[in-house]
Each structure stands twice: as structure tokens, then as C-alpha cells.
């Protein structure tokens, strides 16, 4: 009686012209991940954002995209790594970044502008200046190619979906290759997924609700995050249900004054306990 190994080899040999390695499972790539610092999001991503890939955070305004990205940047900069934030609409708030724990000295901020230098196209005298989107894409290209940045955030959160979808696929493919080569996590913020097949992870963020409407200050933003795409999922099932819903998670983000209040209450409780 032939062994199972011999039987498998026999079957694979018979089918090798039509289906190479028909019974051998394809090797899985286990990607290194870095945590975002938000436990519920990290659980959803099986540990965090994969290194050397493109991760997209999509959703409308006030859906928590910036908070997740800043939290991820804070984790990396506190390790001493260098990160970059490419801001197409110049909307990053340094105070929020510092409050999240981002080491601002380790953050390169590229603020795209309308009053930029003209394109270096010497053949055309009527060369138009770079648009903000052009600048952001080119800056991303330059930073990815130069290497050394552990995380780069391409902030297209305020760009219209039409403009974002006009970005050529070749651009995203080039970003993916460069990110893989330089071990850089590229996080793209947008209203919709733009990178398509080049993205390793797509997280869809949904707008917030505020839990304590009756209070005097706005607090406790609740966000919902759905994982729309994950290329390097460690657990894969060969059978996919048609009505399967994408995995999702809820997370709560307090406002800055919530944390101050919480810290003071903890301090008070500690003092009472000691007393």
C-alpha cells in the first residue's frame, strides 16, 4: 500500500502540466506587524499594521481615521523610529499629535501648498504648478524611495473620492514595492479605498457617536471599524460564506479633557486609599 506522501507525489506528477503543486499548500507570508496602540483595532488587525505594506484607513469626516493614524505614529516615534506625515490639505494639528504622544522631533511633516514651485519641466514654458495632490503623491514617492522612515502617513482624507480614484494604479504599485523594500508602513487616509489591490489592509471607519450628550463637554467618541481587506491574514479558511460580514470592532476615544479628568480622579482615589 503506497504511503500518503507517495500518493500525493503521484497525483501532483499526473496533474503538473495543468495544475502545478495541486496538493501542496501555498507558502504563507507572515508579516511583521506594529501595534496601533488601540487595543480593539489591534485585535481586529491580528496584532497591528503590517510592516512594509500599504494600509488604508477610509471613511467620512469624524470617523476616527486621524486618531488611529496618530496613535500608530505615536507608538513608532516613542520607539525612536522616524515617521513622516504628508499632508495634502495641511490639516494636521500638532497639539493633537503631541497629546496623543507623538514625539514631534521624530516626525517629518510635509505640508503641501497651493503656492508651490512650478514643475521642473523645461520643455514646457506653460508648465502648471504642482497641485496639492500631485505634491503629496510625489513627496510620498520621494520619502519611500529614500528609505529610513518606519511609517509614512499619506493624508488624503479631505481629497474628493473622484480625485483619489484618478491616482494611477501604477503609482500605488510603485508605493507597494518601495514600502516592501524599505520596510515602511504606508498608511493612507481617504474617504474611500484608493490603492485597490496594492493595499494589504483596508479599514473602513464609521462616524462617531458621542455617549454623553447631556454633559457639558463633548466626550467619549465611539467609532466603529470594519476590516474590508487583509491580504496577509494568518488564518485563512478555504471556504468563504457568501453572506459573511466583514469583521468589525467598536472603540472609544476620549477627548483630551476626559483623560485629564480621569487622571485627576485616579489621583484622588490613590490619595484616599493611602489615607
Amino acid at each position, binding site marked *: 500500500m503506497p504511503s500518503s506522501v507517495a500518493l500525493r507525489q503521484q497525483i501532483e506528477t499526473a496533474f503538473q502540466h495543468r495544475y502545478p503543486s495541486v496538493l501542496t499548500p501555498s507558502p504563507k507570508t507572515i508579516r511583521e506587524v506594529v501595534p*496601533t*496602540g488601540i487595543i480593539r483595532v489591534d485585535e481586529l488587525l491580528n496584532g497591528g499594521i503590517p510592516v512594509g505594506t500599504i494600509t488604508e484607513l477610509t471613511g467620512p*469626516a*469624524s470617523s*476616527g*481615521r*486621524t486618531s*488611529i493614524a*496618530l*496613535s500608530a505614529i*505615536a*507608538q513608532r*516615534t*516613542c*520607539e*525612536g*523610529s*522616524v515617521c513622516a506625515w504628508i499632508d495634502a490639505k*495641511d*490639516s*494636521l*494639528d*500638532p*497639539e*493633537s*499629535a503631541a*497629546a*496623543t*504622544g507623538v*514625539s*514631534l*522631533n*521624530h516626525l*517629518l*511633516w*510635509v505640508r503641501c*501648498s497651493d503656492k508651490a*514651485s512650478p514643475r*521642473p519641466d*523645461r520643455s514646457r514654458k506653460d508648465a502648471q504648478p504642482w497641485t496639492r495632490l500631485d*505634491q503629496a503623491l510625489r513627496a510620498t514617492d*520621494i*520619502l519611500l524611495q*529614500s*528609505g*529610513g522612515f*518606519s511609517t509614512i502617513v499619506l493624508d488624503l*482624507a*479631505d481629497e474628493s473620492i473622484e480625485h483619489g480614484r484618478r491616482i494611477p494604479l501604477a503609482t500605488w504599485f510603485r508605493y507597494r514595492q518601495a514600502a516592501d523594500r524599505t520596510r515602511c508602513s504606508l498608511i493612507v487616509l481617504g474617504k474611500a479605498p484608493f490603492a485597490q489591490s496594492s493595499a494589504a489592509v483596508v479599514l473602513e471607519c464609521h*462616524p*462617531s457617536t*458621542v455617549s454623553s*450628550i447631556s*454633559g457639558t*463637554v*463633548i466626550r467619549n*467618541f465611539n467609532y466603529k471599524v470594519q476590516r474590508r481587506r487583509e491580504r496577509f491574514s494568518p488564518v485563512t479558511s478555504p471556504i468563504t460564506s457568501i453572506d459573511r460580514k466583514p469583521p468589525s470592532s467598536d472603540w472609544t*476615544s476620549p477627548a*483630551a479633557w476626559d*483623560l485629564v479628568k480621569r487622571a485627576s480622579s485616579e489621583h484622588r482615589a490613590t490619595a484616599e486609599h493611602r489615607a
Partner: protein
Amino acid sequence: MSPDTKPPSLFAAVHVSEFPAQSILRLRPDLQSAPVVILDGTPPQERVIALNSHARKRGIIQGLTRLEVEEVGSIHILTRSAETEIAARTVLLETLSQFSPRIEEVFANNACSFVLDIAGSERLFGAPDQIAHRLRETIVAAGFRASVSISDNFHTARIKSEFSRGISIIPSGRESNALASIPISALPLDLDHYGTFALWGIGTLGELAALPEDEMIPRFGQPSRQWLALARGNADHTFQPLEEKFELKEHIEFETHIEQLDALLFIGANMIANLVARATCRALSLASINIEMQLERSPAYKRRIQPAIPSCDRKFLLKLLQLELAAHPPQAAVTALTLIADAGRQSKIQLGLFAPQAPEPSRLDVTLARLKAMVGADRVGSPALLDSHAPGRFQMQEFSVIDQPRPSAQPSSPRTSLRRIRPPHPLSLQITEGKPRSFRDGATRYEISVAYGPWQSSGSWWDLDRWDLEEWDVMATTNSGESISCLLIHDHLNNKWLLDAYYD
């Protein structure tokens, strides 16, 4: 060694002829294969004072006027530049100082001559002929063509280098023979003396050296003793070495004003290469380069490029120069270009095996320069918070990875961040019972479901950048059901409602 015995002496004389032409052409490789003349004087009485070999082949000689040169045709006519000659002399001196610290300058008409005391350097550079070849190769690499003579006698080396081409090695005791064919114009003679020697039929130093000294002195006095010593190659000389200050400077003036950056960079590349070569000779790097340009009918242009670490990478520095000029192009045609470099120690970055990921410093310089050229110099860097209660105040500071301390603070727990709108959008707002109820941002109308506020803040009333704001945190929905959380401000100074930021 007995007290009467003189220490062995050896001198190398370097003579760069047509120095006004060579000082300009060394930075203009495009003209090196073309006939070029240098004019000096006040128009219209300008005359040729220097020329290259191609112009000489076309029949040009010194002393011709501009009109006579233009009649020949296809000759590049350049104007003499004293500053370029000074810079070139410094470069030549720097080059020669690689071989000896004791250098004396010899003043020669229309040329630049130096004599090096190379006694005792045989063990370092080899025999005299090897020293001469290495000397000449180094001078050629610096962009000059020079004749080199080596002799035990200072004046013999000097005179031979002035009146011969290429390399001349004069063995000890053969000085008189080496100088025999040189015309007596090499000596400091008056016109009367020239006339007398012409009557006597004496035209060369060899013929002069054959005259008896006892017969010469009664006729010409004591100076004739020095002439004979010079002609025989045994004149004494007290060496007076130069003490030059080390300065990395290159200067060039253009005969036609340059408007294209590419043309400017073509010349700038040579200047940077020369600066790097000179710094490298002293085991130094370029810590910064000051760019100064004289512009046509405009104020002088001054910029500075400063790599993160001192560098002697020619291509890297040229790229920084290119990006700096692209980001800040001169506003008029360039008439003169000066590069002054500050020397720094050659530094190495020690990379750690377990150090966090960071860009390579020199590569980061180019990256930042490219980004600045694209989006503006003040829009690339690290944000730094200002010590102010005014909302959204920060400044941009230079981004660097050198000596960056490792952050001590741990990342705090995540919190909702703001997305600023710069500049804030003006709104039309409806207020009911003291609270905002709805607002319109462009074509979109928002109904406010919850509003928290007002939060009043003001400050700097004594200054121009005073502020007086009323802030409202609101949750609003559009007609299409889209909801946002945002920050509205009421600017009391201008009495305007503005959409300042989103919570995201």
C-alpha cells in the same frame, strides 16, 4: 656635518603662464578647446593680455586691440577678472602645499609662479623626476597647465621653469648648462644694458656666463656680479615662505550673463569639485557652502547650503546646490558666482545593530531639499509647539536625525484628534437661545444636534497677533444624513463665525 657645509637644498619651481586666461578657463571646460583671449584696460583701449594656445595658433599675440581680435573672427573674448585670479592663485597655492609647507611666490609678468622648498622630501615623494611628475599631474588635476623645474639652486629652477615647457630636472653642477640657451631677458636688466649686450652680441645667459667677472664689474658695477651668478646658476637666495590663510573659496565672473540654471550648475559643478579636492587634501570635508551671486541690476543673491554632516561627496553637494537654486532661483541674470565653503571634520556615523530605523543623514538632506523645492522651504520640517494659549500655534523647525535623543515619554492612550482647516472656513450660522442651531459651509447645510460651549479665550491684547475667540464643539448632520463633529469659532475681533477643525 661640519659648520661650513651647507645643508642640501632642492627647489621645485612651478610656472603657470598666461595666468589671467588659465584662471578663467579652469572653470570653463566648454572653452578649453576654443581660441580664447583675455582683454584688459578701459574701453575702447582694451588690449590682449593673455591667450590660450588655440588663439595663438590663430595668429593672436599679446597687445592686440579688441578690434584687431574681432577681425580675426571666431575668437572668444573675455574680460580680465582680478577676483577670479585671486581665487585661482589660492587654489594653486593649496595644490602645491600638498608637496611642501615652504612655498615662496615669485612675481612674474602675466604669470603665476611659485618655488617650493622640497629638500628632504625624496623619501616621501621619490626622486626629483618623480616629484616633478606628481607635481605636474596634481596641478593639471586642479585645472592648470604649468612648467616644472627642479634644481638645487632657487633662481635656476625659477628661470628654467619660466623659459621652458614641461618638466626640467637640472642635476647638481649642471645649472650653467641648463640656463645657457635662455635669453638674457630673464635677468633684471635696464634698457641701456640690453643695448650694450646687444652691441656685444650677447643674447643668452650662456654667453653672459662666459664673460669674465673682473671685466664686468668695472663696466656695470656690483649688479653685474648678481647677473653673472644668476647666469651661472650659483646665485644665493634667502627663502621667504608664504604664510597663507586657508580659505575655501571659488569665484568666477561671466562674460555673458547667465540666466539658465543648468548653465550655472555646469560651472558650479567644477567649483564644488575644486573645493572638495582642496578640502580632501587636508583631510577635511565641507560643512557648509555659502553661495553668492552678483545679479544684473539686482541686489546680490546669497544662500547657504549646510548638509547634516560635513561631506566631501561631490555629487551629493552638487545635488544640494541644484535643489537650493531650484527652490530659490535668482531673480535676474547672474554676472558672477562665488562659492565659499566652511571646512569641517570628516565625520562618520556609527550605525547601531539595534538602533531604530532612521534615514541616512546625507540622503535625508537631499530628500528634504527636494521636498522643499517642491512645496516650499517653510513647509517641510518638524512641528514645534509654542508656549501660547492661542489655539493652533506652532512653528516649523528643521528636521534632523543627527543626535536626536530617544523619546523618554511613553505613548499616551489614544484620544480623538483634531483636523485643522487652514485657513478656517467662514460660515453663515443661525443661533437660537444663545446656541448655534445650524450653519452653512459653502453649499452644504448642517443641522446641529448638540452644541457644547461656549469656551472663551483671548490673549496678546498688547500685540498685533491678539485673539479673542469663542469656541463651540458641535455635532451636526447634513440633509443626506452625514454626521460630523467639529469645532466652530466665533472671532470677536472680526465678528466672523468660522469652521476651524473637525474631530476625527
